[in-house]
């Protein structure tokens, strides 16, 4: 039985990961509530042995991590491999809500996680972010992570329904796209590229629960570029439909 309202947040800093980790830290600072236990593993502490020990000690209900990834692996500080499809560590995520903000893990690793976890959130292909300004120095450098980590914001607010959380994640992307297209950010020079990065990340956004992962087709890595658009259409509300609402 996992410990309710206990959060483990993995925040590596090297290899550009500070861009996402600083946003996670801000969300924790702003969003944590009395009675919640939130442990952040930053920089060198975001390594496999400390993460293992923290999971065993805390038994967290929620595990959120940023890191570089691929179809079968999620890495942490200094690109150390932490989770691999089929490994014993996947079993350590049993009954937890897991969000890996990382490239492509939804293709295989995420499916594996979702067979034991309560829910898994991730991406079917590359997750893009803007690095034209320093981490957390402005809205532009935060934009893609602000939208993606609506998942953590929702969890800190007490939401536990995976479908509702995914809905908030999609809505946060839509809001952010509007901000950079027709909102206050539209005249900024970086606005066009950020609106596109947000659209891209939304297109590959994925959520699985044990029931849902069984019902969705597996995509082979060889056909990913074509399959992503198809899978997005099959598994998630189409971005076209989502964006239509904001287009009037």
């Amino acid at each position, binding site marked *: 039985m996992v410990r309710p309202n206990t959060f483990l947040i993995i925040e590596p800093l090297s290899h550009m990961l500070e861009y996402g980790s600083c946003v996670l830290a801000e969300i924790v600072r702003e969003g944590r509530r009395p009675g919640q236990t939130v442990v952040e593993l930053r920089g060198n502490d975001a390594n496999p042995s400390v993460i293992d020990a923290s999971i065993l000690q805390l038994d967290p209900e929620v595990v959120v991590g940023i890191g570089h990834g691929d179809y079968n692996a999620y890495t942490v500080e200094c690109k150390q491999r932490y989770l691999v499809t089929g490994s014993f560590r996947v079993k350590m995520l049993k009954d937890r809500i897991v969000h890996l903000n990382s490239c492509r893990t939804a293709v295989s690793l995420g499916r594996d996680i979702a067979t034991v976890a309560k829910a898994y959130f991730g991406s079917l*292909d590359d997750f893009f972010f803007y690095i034209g300004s320093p981490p957390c120095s402005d809205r532009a450098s935060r934009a893609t992570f602000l939208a993606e980590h609506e998942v953590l914001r929702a969890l800190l607010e007490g939401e536990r329904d995976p479908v509702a959380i995914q809905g908030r994640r999609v809505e946060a992307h839509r809001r952010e796209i509007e901000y950079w297209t027709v909102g206050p950010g*539209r005249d900024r020079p970086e606005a066009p*590229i950020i609106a*596109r990065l947000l659209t891209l990340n939304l*297109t590959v956004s994925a959520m699985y629960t044990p029931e849902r992962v069984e019902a969705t087709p597996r995509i082979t890595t060889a056909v990913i570029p074509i399959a992503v658009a198809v899978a997005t259409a099959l598994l998630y509300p189409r*971005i*076209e439909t989502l964006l239509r609402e*904001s287009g009037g």
Partner: protein
Amino acid sequence: MTLHVVRAWYNRLPPVERDLPILILDGLAYTPNMVLAEVTRGSIVGERLQRLIEEGRLGNSRLEEEQLAKIRLKELLRRYPEMPLVAVLREGRIFTPSQLIEEIERGTPVGRMLVISEIEYMKFLLRLR
């Protein structure tokens, strides 16, 4: 759709998007500036462009949409200074604007993703009213 509605659509577009091609007709790409000019003149081409907007179509085939997306992305990326602009959460990869253009031209997975999402973003822009 009346001229008034096309104007309202045009005015909702971010200024930076108004000179990027968004529709393709008979093999020619049209920017919102060109669309507005044709519709204001009341030309046959203007009527056909207007119809594409009404129907939420960028062109007459997926191939045309992809061509349009590539042209737009390349034009847009050339406007940015040559410095690290974008990164992905995979192997710490970073891209300058010219490297992104190369990904698009070579049709790599990154380039393909950019093109696919550009098509979605163009459809979103078409629906702004």
